[in-house]
Protein backbone atom coordinates (compact mmCIF):
# COMPACT_ATOMS: atom_id res chain seq x y z
CA UNK A 1 0.00 0.00 0.00
CA UNK A 2 1.29 3.42 -0.99
CA UNK A 3 1.92 6.08 1.65
CA UNK A 4 0.74 9.69 1.70
CA UNK A 5 2.36 12.85 2.94
CA UNK A 6 -0.70 15.07 3.53
CA UNK A 7 -4.22 14.84 4.92
CA UNK A 8 -6.81 12.97 2.86
CA UNK A 9 -9.80 14.76 4.37
CA UNK A 10 -10.59 16.66 1.14
CA UNK A 11 -10.72 13.36 -0.74
CA UNK A 12 -13.08 11.90 1.87
CA UNK A 13 -15.27 14.99 1.58
CA UNK A 14 -15.25 14.66 -2.20
CA UNK A 15 -16.60 11.10 -1.98
CA UNK A 16 -19.37 12.12 0.45
CA UNK A 17 -20.32 15.22 -1.55
CA UNK A 18 -20.37 13.17 -4.76
CA UNK A 19 -22.72 10.76 -2.98
CA UNK A 20 -25.03 13.66 -2.07
CA UNK A 21 -24.85 15.01 -5.60
CA UNK A 22 -26.08 11.65 -6.92
CA UNK A 23 -28.90 11.62 -4.33
CA UNK A 24 -30.13 14.99 -5.62
CA UNK A 25 -29.74 13.87 -9.19
CA UNK A 26 -31.95 10.85 -8.43
CA UNK A 27 -34.47 13.15 -6.68
CA UNK A 28 -34.51 15.42 -9.73
CA UNK A 29 -34.99 12.53 -12.14
CA UNK A 30 -37.71 11.02 -9.94
CA UNK A 31 -39.85 14.13 -10.24
CA UNK A 32 -39.95 13.86 -14.05
CA UNK A 33 -42.87 11.35 -14.16
CA UNK A 34 -44.93 13.66 -11.96
CA UNK A 35 -44.00 16.64 -14.12
CA UNK A 36 -45.13 14.68 -17.19
CA UNK A 37 -48.40 14.00 -15.35
CA UNK A 38 -49.11 17.73 -15.25
CA UNK A 39 -47.39 18.89 -12.04
CA UNK A 40 -45.74 22.03 -13.36
CA UNK A 41 -44.15 23.11 -10.08
CA UNK A 42 -42.63 19.66 -9.64
CA UNK A 43 -41.07 20.02 -13.09
CA UNK A 44 -39.40 23.24 -11.96
CA UNK A 45 -38.22 21.68 -8.70
CA UNK A 46 -36.88 18.66 -10.59
CA UNK A 47 -34.88 20.91 -12.89
CA UNK A 48 -33.59 22.91 -9.91
CA UNK A 49 -32.58 19.63 -8.23
CA UNK A 50 -30.63 18.48 -11.30
CA UNK A 51 -28.83 21.82 -11.52
CA UNK A 52 -28.17 21.70 -7.80
CA UNK A 53 -26.72 18.20 -8.13
CA UNK A 54 -24.32 19.52 -10.76
CA UNK A 55 -23.38 22.45 -8.53
CA UNK A 56 -22.74 20.15 -5.55
CA UNK A 57 -20.55 17.94 -7.74
CA UNK A 58 -18.52 21.02 -8.73
CA UNK A 59 -18.19 21.99 -5.07
CA UNK A 60 -16.84 18.49 -4.41
CA UNK A 61 -14.26 18.91 -7.16
CA UNK A 62 -13.36 22.29 -5.69
CA UNK A 63 -12.78 20.66 -2.30
CA UNK A 64 -10.65 18.00 -3.98
CA UNK A 65 -8.55 20.77 -5.51
CA UNK A 66 -8.23 22.39 -2.04
CA UNK A 67 -10.07 25.58 -3.03
CA UNK A 68 -11.06 27.83 -0.13
CA UNK A 69 -14.37 28.88 -1.74
CA UNK A 70 -15.32 25.23 -2.11
CA UNK A 71 -14.65 24.49 1.56
CA UNK A 72 -16.77 27.45 2.64
CA UNK A 73 -19.56 26.57 0.22
CA UNK A 74 -19.56 22.94 1.32
CA UNK A 75 -19.71 23.93 4.98
CA UNK A 76 -22.62 26.31 4.33
CA UNK A 77 -24.40 23.70 2.27
CA UNK A 78 -24.05 20.98 4.88
CA UNK A 79 -25.10 23.28 7.71
CA UNK A 80 -28.23 24.17 5.70
CA UNK A 81 -28.85 20.46 5.10
CA UNK A 82 -28.54 19.70 8.80
CA UNK A 83 -30.86 22.56 9.71
CA UNK A 84 -33.45 21.42 7.16
CA UNK A 85 -33.16 17.82 8.35
CA UNK A 86 -33.55 18.87 11.98
CA UNK A 87 -36.76 20.71 11.09
CA UNK A 88 -38.07 17.84 9.01
CA UNK A 89 -37.28 15.25 11.66
CA UNK A 90 -38.40 17.41 14.57
CA UNK A 91 -41.74 18.67 13.28
CA UNK A 92 -44.75 16.32 13.54
CA UNK A 93 -45.28 16.05 9.78
CA UNK A 94 -44.70 12.33 9.47
CA UNK A 95 -41.29 12.57 7.82
CA UNK A 96 -39.34 9.33 7.46
CA UNK A 97 -37.05 8.61 10.44
CA UNK A 98 -35.52 5.40 9.08
CA UNK A 99 -31.82 4.54 8.98
CA UNK A 100 -31.46 5.63 5.34
CA UNK A 101 -32.99 9.06 6.08
CA UNK A 102 -30.68 9.47 9.07
CA UNK A 103 -27.68 8.36 7.04
CA UNK A 104 -28.26 10.63 4.06
CA UNK A 105 -29.75 13.65 5.80
CA UNK A 106 -27.85 13.70 9.09
CA UNK A 107 -24.76 11.46 9.17
CA UNK A 108 -23.33 12.45 5.76
CA UNK A 109 -23.71 16.24 6.27
CA UNK A 110 -22.38 15.95 9.83
CA UNK A 111 -19.39 13.92 8.60
CA UNK A 112 -18.58 16.51 5.92
CA UNK A 113 -18.72 19.33 8.49
CA UNK A 114 -16.52 17.35 10.87
CA UNK A 115 -13.99 16.64 8.11
CA UNK A 116 -13.81 20.26 6.94
CA UNK A 117 -13.87 21.90 10.35
CA UNK A 118 -10.82 23.13 12.22
CA UNK A 119 -7.71 25.20 11.66
CA UNK A 120 -5.51 22.31 10.51
CA UNK A 121 -7.89 21.32 7.73
CA UNK A 122 -8.49 24.95 6.79
CA UNK A 123 -4.76 25.44 6.32
CA UNK A 124 -4.62 22.97 3.41
CA UNK A 125 -7.15 25.05 1.43
CA UNK A 126 -5.86 27.99 -0.58
Amino acid at each position, binding site marked *: *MERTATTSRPEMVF*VLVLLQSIFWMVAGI*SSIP*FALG*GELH*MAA*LGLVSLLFALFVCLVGIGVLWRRRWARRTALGLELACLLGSALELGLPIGANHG*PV*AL*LTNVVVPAAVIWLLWGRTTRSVFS
Partner: protein
Amino acid sequence: MYSISPAHAIGLVGGLAALPLALIALRFHPRWRSVPGTVQAAAVLMAVSGGVHLALIPHHLATQPLTSLLFLLNGIAFITLSATFTWKYWRLASAALLITTVLGYLVYVAIGFEGPDQVGIATKLVEVTALGLALVPVRGEIGRTHRSWRWATLGVAMPMLLVITGATVWIVDLARPDPRHVHAGALLQATNPFPTPPQVEAADRLYAATKTAILPYEDWHQAWAAGYRPGGSTTLPSTHWINQRYVDAGYVMDPQRPQGLVYANTHHGPVLLGAMFQMKGLNQFGPDPGGPITRWHQHENICITPFGFEFSLMTPYATCAIGAVDISASPMLHVWIVDNPRGGPFAVDIDPTVVAALDRS
Protein backbone atom coordinates in the same frame (compact mmCIF):
# COMPACT_ATOMS: atom_id res chain seq x y z
CA MET B 1 -38.64 -0.12 1.18
CA TYR B 2 -39.28 2.57 3.79
CA SER B 3 -39.54 0.20 6.74
CA ILE B 4 -37.20 -2.21 8.51
CA SER B 5 -37.95 -5.86 7.86
CA PRO B 6 -38.13 -7.68 11.25
CA ALA B 7 -35.79 -10.33 9.85
CA HIS B 8 -33.19 -7.66 9.01
CA ALA B 9 -33.35 -5.57 12.20
CA ILE B 10 -30.60 -7.69 13.74
CA GLY B 11 -28.39 -6.71 10.79
CA LEU B 12 -28.66 -3.09 11.86
CA VAL B 13 -27.55 -4.08 15.36
CA GLY B 14 -24.65 -6.07 13.90
CA GLY B 15 -23.50 -3.13 11.79
CA LEU B 16 -23.76 -0.65 14.65
CA ALA B 17 -21.88 -3.03 16.96
CA ALA B 18 -19.15 -3.55 14.35
CA LEU B 19 -18.52 0.20 14.02
CA PRO B 20 -16.91 0.85 17.45
CA LEU B 21 -15.26 -2.56 17.44
CA ALA B 22 -13.60 -1.83 14.09
CA LEU B 23 -12.58 1.68 15.17
CA ILE B 24 -10.88 0.28 18.27
CA ALA B 25 -9.41 -2.90 16.76
CA LEU B 26 -7.99 -1.32 13.61
CA ARG B 27 -6.14 1.30 15.63
CA PHE B 28 -3.98 -1.51 17.00
CA HIS B 29 -2.88 -2.40 13.47
CA PRO B 30 0.86 -1.64 13.32
CA ARG B 31 0.53 0.24 10.01
CA TRP B 32 -2.76 2.02 10.74
CA ARG B 33 -1.15 5.46 10.72
CA SER B 34 0.83 4.82 7.55
CA VAL B 35 -2.21 4.70 5.24
CA PRO B 36 -4.41 7.61 4.11
CA GLY B 37 -7.61 8.45 6.01
CA THR B 38 -9.62 7.35 2.98
CA VAL B 39 -8.25 3.82 3.35
CA GLN B 40 -8.86 3.85 7.11
CA ALA B 41 -12.47 4.98 6.60
CA ALA B 42 -13.05 2.39 3.87
CA ALA B 43 -11.67 -0.35 6.15
CA VAL B 44 -14.02 0.67 8.97
CA LEU B 45 -17.04 0.80 6.64
CA MET B 46 -16.24 -2.63 5.23
CA ALA B 47 -16.08 -3.98 8.79
CA VAL B 48 -19.54 -2.46 9.37
CA SER B 49 -20.88 -4.19 6.26
CA GLY B 50 -19.25 -7.42 7.41
CA GLY B 51 -21.01 -7.04 10.78
CA VAL B 52 -24.37 -6.60 9.05
CA HIS B 53 -23.88 -9.72 6.91
CA LEU B 54 -22.70 -11.91 9.79
CA ALA B 55 -25.59 -10.78 12.02
CA LEU B 56 -28.12 -11.80 9.36
CA ILE B 57 -26.94 -15.44 9.26
CA PRO B 58 -28.94 -16.95 12.18
CA HIS B 59 -32.30 -15.67 10.96
CA HIS B 60 -31.76 -16.98 7.42
CA LEU B 61 -30.11 -20.27 8.37
CA ALA B 62 -33.26 -22.39 8.66
CA THR B 63 -35.13 -21.09 5.61
CA GLN B 64 -32.34 -19.92 3.26
CA PRO B 65 -29.17 -21.95 3.92
CA LEU B 66 -27.52 -20.84 0.65
CA THR B 67 -28.13 -17.18 1.48
CA SER B 68 -26.71 -17.78 4.95
CA LEU B 69 -23.59 -19.30 3.42
CA LEU B 70 -23.21 -16.29 1.12
CA PHE B 71 -23.67 -13.96 4.10
CA LEU B 72 -20.96 -15.89 5.95
CA LEU B 73 -18.49 -15.73 3.05
CA ASN B 74 -19.33 -12.07 2.46
CA GLY B 75 -18.94 -11.18 6.13
CA ILE B 76 -15.61 -12.98 6.44
CA ALA B 77 -14.34 -11.40 3.22
CA PHE B 78 -15.30 -7.90 4.38
CA ILE B 79 -13.72 -8.30 7.80
CA THR B 80 -10.57 -9.85 6.32
CA LEU B 81 -10.20 -7.00 3.83
CA SER B 82 -10.86 -4.40 6.50
CA ALA B 83 -7.87 -5.79 8.41
CA THR B 84 -5.53 -6.25 5.44
CA PHE B 85 -5.54 -2.69 4.08
CA THR B 86 -1.77 -2.77 3.52
CA TRP B 87 -2.02 -5.67 1.05
CA LYS B 88 -0.76 -4.85 -2.43
CA TYR B 89 -4.02 -5.80 -4.12
CA TRP B 90 -6.29 -4.44 -1.39
CA ARG B 91 -7.96 -1.78 -3.55
CA LEU B 92 -8.62 -4.19 -6.39
CA ALA B 93 -9.99 -6.88 -4.08
CA SER B 94 -12.09 -4.39 -2.09
CA ALA B 95 -13.57 -2.80 -5.21
CA ALA B 96 -14.39 -6.22 -6.67
CA LEU B 97 -16.01 -7.43 -3.43
CA LEU B 98 -18.00 -4.24 -2.89
CA ILE B 99 -19.30 -4.07 -6.47
CA THR B 100 -20.17 -7.78 -6.47
CA THR B 101 -21.98 -7.50 -3.15
CA VAL B 102 -24.12 -4.56 -4.28
CA LEU B 103 -24.96 -6.25 -7.58
CA GLY B 104 -25.66 -9.54 -5.79
CA TYR B 105 -28.13 -7.78 -3.51
CA LEU B 106 -29.87 -6.25 -6.50
CA VAL B 107 -30.21 -9.66 -8.17
CA TYR B 108 -31.68 -11.04 -4.93
CA VAL B 109 -34.16 -8.16 -4.76
CA ALA B 110 -35.07 -8.36 -8.44
CA ILE B 111 -35.85 -12.08 -8.37
CA GLY B 112 -37.77 -11.76 -5.11
CA PHE B 113 -35.42 -13.60 -2.73
CA GLU B 114 -35.26 -10.47 -0.56
CA GLY B 115 -37.63 -7.55 -0.13
CA PRO B 116 -36.00 -4.11 -0.31
CA ASP B 117 -35.91 -2.55 3.15
CA GLN B 118 -34.08 0.13 5.12
CA VAL B 119 -31.34 -2.19 6.38
CA GLY B 120 -30.55 -3.42 2.88
CA ILE B 121 -30.51 0.07 1.33
CA ALA B 122 -28.47 1.56 4.21
CA THR B 123 -25.93 -1.26 3.91
CA LYS B 124 -25.61 -0.66 0.16
CA LEU B 125 -25.01 3.04 0.84
CA VAL B 126 -22.26 2.14 3.29
CA GLU B 127 -20.72 -0.20 0.71
CA VAL B 128 -20.84 2.36 -2.13
CA THR B 129 -19.26 4.93 0.21
CA ALA B 130 -16.54 2.41 1.11
CA LEU B 131 -15.98 1.80 -2.60
CA GLY B 132 -15.52 5.52 -3.24
CA LEU B 133 -13.14 5.87 -0.31
CA ALA B 134 -11.13 2.81 -1.33
CA LEU B 135 -10.70 4.08 -4.87
CA VAL B 136 -10.30 7.85 -4.56
CA PRO B 137 -6.68 8.83 -5.22
CA VAL B 138 -5.14 10.95 -2.49
CA ARG B 139 -2.79 13.84 -3.08
CA GLY B 140 0.78 13.01 -2.15
CA GLU B 141 0.53 9.22 -2.47
CA ILE B 142 3.93 7.61 -2.90
CA GLY B 143 4.57 4.54 -5.03
CA ARG B 144 2.53 2.99 -7.86
CA THR B 145 -0.85 4.57 -7.38
CA HIS B 146 -2.77 3.58 -10.57
CA ARG B 147 -4.60 6.89 -10.41
CA SER B 148 -6.14 6.62 -13.88
CA TRP B 149 -7.99 3.35 -13.40
CA ARG B 150 -9.00 4.36 -9.89
CA TRP B 151 -10.56 7.61 -11.13
CA ALA B 152 -12.21 5.81 -14.01
CA THR B 153 -13.67 3.10 -11.78
CA LEU B 154 -14.81 5.64 -9.18
CA GLY B 155 -16.41 7.91 -11.76
CA VAL B 156 -18.34 5.09 -13.36
CA ALA B 157 -19.07 2.71 -10.50
CA MET B 158 -20.37 5.11 -7.84
CA PRO B 159 -23.05 6.86 -9.95
CA MET B 160 -23.98 3.67 -11.79
CA LEU B 161 -24.36 1.59 -8.63
CA LEU B 162 -26.43 4.25 -6.87
CA VAL B 163 -28.73 4.86 -9.82
CA ILE B 164 -29.18 1.13 -10.52
CA THR B 165 -29.75 0.38 -6.82
CA GLY B 166 -32.29 3.17 -6.47
CA ALA B 167 -34.13 2.19 -9.64
CA THR B 168 -34.19 -1.53 -8.80
CA VAL B 169 -35.49 -1.22 -5.25
CA TRP B 170 -38.02 1.39 -6.30
CA ILE B 171 -39.38 -0.63 -9.22
CA VAL B 172 -39.54 -3.80 -7.12
CA ASP B 173 -41.26 -1.94 -4.28
CA LEU B 174 -43.90 -0.50 -6.60
CA ALA B 175 -44.37 -3.71 -8.57
CA ARG B 176 -44.45 -6.07 -5.57
CA PRO B 177 -45.67 -4.12 -2.53
CA ASP B 178 -46.20 -6.03 0.69
CA PRO B 179 -49.83 -6.94 1.58
CA ARG B 180 -50.43 -3.77 3.61
CA HIS B 181 -49.06 -1.36 1.02
CA VAL B 182 -50.65 -0.27 -2.21
CA HIS B 183 -49.61 2.25 -4.84
CA ALA B 184 -47.41 5.18 -3.88
CA GLY B 185 -46.65 3.98 -0.38
CA ALA B 186 -50.20 4.03 0.91
CA LEU B 187 -50.33 2.04 4.14
CA LEU B 188 -53.62 0.15 4.52
CA GLN B 189 -55.46 -0.32 7.80
CA ALA B 190 -55.15 -3.85 9.22
CA THR B 191 -58.47 -5.70 9.05
CA ASN B 192 -59.93 -9.19 8.86
CA PRO B 193 -59.12 -10.76 5.46
CA PHE B 194 -62.68 -11.33 4.19
CA PRO B 195 -65.80 -9.22 4.90
CA THR B 196 -68.58 -10.73 6.99
CA PRO B 197 -72.25 -10.24 5.88
CA PRO B 198 -72.83 -7.52 8.55
CA GLN B 199 -69.69 -5.72 7.30
CA VAL B 200 -71.00 -5.82 3.72
CA GLU B 201 -74.30 -4.34 4.92
CA ALA B 202 -72.52 -1.64 6.92
CA ALA B 203 -70.38 -0.72 3.91
CA ASP B 204 -73.50 -0.46 1.75
CA ARG B 205 -75.13 1.82 4.33
CA LEU B 206 -72.07 4.06 4.49
CA TYR B 207 -71.96 4.27 0.70
CA ALA B 208 -75.65 5.16 0.41
CA ALA B 209 -75.51 7.78 3.19
CA THR B 210 -72.39 9.41 1.76
CA LYS B 211 -73.69 9.46 -1.80
CA THR B 212 -76.98 11.04 -0.72
CA ALA B 213 -75.18 13.64 1.37
CA ILE B 214 -72.70 14.78 -1.29
CA LEU B 215 -74.95 14.67 -4.38
CA PRO B 216 -75.72 18.42 -4.06
CA TYR B 217 -71.99 19.02 -4.55
CA GLU B 218 -72.20 17.77 -8.10
CA ASP B 219 -72.66 21.48 -8.65
CA TRP B 220 -69.20 22.63 -7.60
CA HIS B 221 -70.56 26.10 -6.75
CA GLN B 222 -72.44 24.50 -3.84
CA ALA B 223 -69.25 22.86 -2.65
CA TRP B 224 -67.50 26.20 -2.84
CA ALA B 225 -70.32 27.81 -0.85
CA ALA B 226 -70.00 25.06 1.77
CA GLY B 227 -66.32 25.87 2.22
CA TYR B 228 -64.59 23.34 -0.03
CA ARG B 229 -61.53 24.64 -1.91
CA PRO B 230 -59.17 22.93 -4.40
CA GLY B 231 -56.31 21.43 -2.39
CA GLY B 232 -53.97 21.14 -5.35
CA SER B 233 -53.41 21.87 -8.98
CA THR B 234 -56.53 21.84 -11.16
CA THR B 235 -54.43 21.01 -14.22
CA LEU B 236 -54.20 17.38 -13.03
CA PRO B 237 -56.82 14.77 -14.00
CA SER B 238 -58.47 15.08 -10.57
CA THR B 239 -58.22 17.32 -7.52
CA HIS B 240 -59.14 16.91 -3.86
CA TRP B 241 -61.19 19.83 -2.61
CA ILE B 242 -60.71 20.27 1.13
CA ASN B 243 -63.01 21.82 3.71
CA GLN B 244 -60.54 23.12 6.28
CA ARG B 245 -63.31 23.78 8.80
CA TYR B 246 -64.29 20.10 8.76
CA VAL B 247 -60.64 19.06 8.92
CA ASP B 248 -60.03 21.24 11.96
CA ALA B 249 -63.26 20.10 13.64
CA GLY B 250 -62.11 16.49 13.34
CA TYR B 251 -65.45 14.95 12.36
CA VAL B 252 -65.00 11.19 12.17
CA MET B 253 -66.51 9.57 9.05
CA ASP B 254 -69.55 11.85 9.09
CA PRO B 255 -71.30 11.48 5.70
CA GLN B 256 -72.79 14.97 6.12
CA ARG B 257 -69.38 16.53 6.66
CA PRO B 258 -66.66 14.75 4.68
CA GLN B 259 -63.32 16.52 4.95
CA GLY B 260 -62.79 16.36 1.20
CA LEU B 261 -64.50 16.00 -2.16
CA VAL B 262 -62.77 14.68 -5.25
CA TYR B 263 -63.49 16.28 -8.60
CA ALA B 264 -62.36 15.23 -12.07
CA ASN B 265 -60.97 18.23 -13.92
CA THR B 266 -62.79 17.86 -17.24
CA HIS B 267 -62.92 20.26 -20.14
CA HIS B 268 -66.52 21.07 -19.16
CA GLY B 269 -65.66 21.82 -15.54
CA PRO B 270 -65.24 19.87 -12.28
CA VAL B 271 -67.20 16.59 -12.13
CA LEU B 272 -67.79 15.06 -8.70
CA LEU B 273 -66.12 11.68 -8.27
CA GLY B 274 -66.59 11.09 -4.55
CA ALA B 275 -65.90 12.06 -0.97
CA MET B 276 -62.91 11.70 1.28
CA PHE B 277 -63.04 11.21 5.04
CA GLN B 278 -59.82 12.07 6.84
CA MET B 279 -58.67 11.57 10.41
CA LYS B 280 -56.99 14.42 12.25
CA GLY B 281 -53.83 12.69 13.43
CA LEU B 282 -51.18 10.49 11.84
CA ASN B 283 -51.44 6.73 12.44
CA GLN B 284 -55.00 7.08 13.81
CA PHE B 285 -57.08 4.92 11.50
CA GLY B 286 -60.80 5.65 11.63
CA PRO B 287 -63.73 3.33 12.33
CA ASP B 288 -63.96 0.48 9.88
CA PRO B 289 -67.59 -0.69 9.66
CA GLY B 290 -67.09 -2.60 6.43
CA GLY B 291 -63.94 -4.45 7.51
CA PRO B 292 -61.65 -5.05 4.50
CA ILE B 293 -64.09 -3.20 2.22
CA THR B 294 -63.78 0.12 4.01
CA ARG B 295 -60.24 0.07 5.30
CA TRP B 296 -58.50 3.42 5.60
CA HIS B 297 -55.11 4.25 4.13
CA GLN B 298 -52.32 6.60 5.11
CA HIS B 299 -49.98 8.06 2.50
CA GLU B 300 -46.39 7.89 3.71
CA ASN B 301 -43.13 9.29 2.37
CA ILE B 302 -44.62 11.69 -0.11
CA CYS B 303 -42.71 14.79 -1.14
CA ILE B 304 -45.00 17.78 -1.18
CA THR B 305 -44.17 21.17 -2.61
CA PRO B 306 -45.74 24.16 -0.92
CA PHE B 307 -45.90 25.86 -4.31
CA GLY B 308 -49.27 24.71 -5.51
CA PHE B 309 -49.54 21.59 -3.36
CA GLU B 310 -48.16 19.13 -5.85
CA PHE B 311 -46.47 15.94 -4.79
CA SER B 312 -43.97 13.29 -5.80
CA LEU B 313 -42.54 10.27 -4.01
CA MET B 314 -39.54 10.20 -1.72
CA THR B 315 -36.61 8.39 -3.34
CA PRO B 316 -35.16 5.20 -1.81
CA TYR B 317 -32.33 7.45 -0.55
CA ALA B 318 -34.82 9.46 1.52
CA THR B 319 -34.49 12.60 -0.56
CA CYS B 320 -37.05 14.84 -2.24
CA ALA B 321 -36.58 17.34 -5.04
CA ILE B 322 -35.13 20.62 -3.74
CA GLY B 323 -37.95 22.69 -2.22
CA ALA B 324 -40.21 19.71 -1.53
CA VAL B 325 -40.70 18.30 1.97
CA ASP B 326 -41.16 14.68 3.03
CA ILE B 327 -44.46 14.24 4.86
CA SER B 328 -47.15 11.66 5.62
CA ALA B 329 -50.86 12.38 5.23
CA SER B 330 -53.17 11.28 8.06
CA PRO B 331 -55.45 8.28 7.35
CA MET B 332 -58.21 8.74 4.79
CA LEU B 333 -61.08 6.80 3.27
CA HIS B 334 -62.52 7.53 -0.16
CA VAL B 335 -66.12 6.89 -1.21
CA TRP B 336 -66.41 6.97 -5.01
CA ILE B 337 -69.93 7.74 -6.20
CA VAL B 338 -69.05 7.04 -9.83
CA ASP B 339 -68.51 3.51 -11.07
CA ASN B 340 -64.93 2.46 -10.20
CA PRO B 341 -64.22 -0.84 -11.95
CA ARG B 342 -60.71 -1.12 -10.51
CA GLY B 343 -61.24 -1.40 -6.76
CA GLY B 344 -64.86 -0.49 -6.12
CA PRO B 345 -66.51 2.36 -4.22
CA PHE B 346 -63.99 2.47 -1.32
CA ALA B 347 -60.76 1.93 -3.28
CA VAL B 348 -57.63 3.94 -2.51
CA ASP B 349 -57.70 5.32 -6.06
CA ILE B 350 -60.18 6.09 -8.78
CA ASP B 351 -59.60 4.22 -12.03
CA PRO B 352 -57.84 6.73 -14.35
CA THR B 353 -59.85 5.43 -17.32
CA VAL B 354 -63.02 6.57 -15.56
CA VAL B 355 -61.63 10.10 -15.21
CA ALA B 356 -60.48 10.09 -18.83
CA ALA B 357 -63.93 8.93 -19.98
CA LEU B 358 -65.62 11.71 -18.00
CA ASP B 359 -63.32 14.24 -19.65
CA ARG B 360 -64.21 12.89 -23.10
CA SER B 361 -67.97 12.81 -22.45
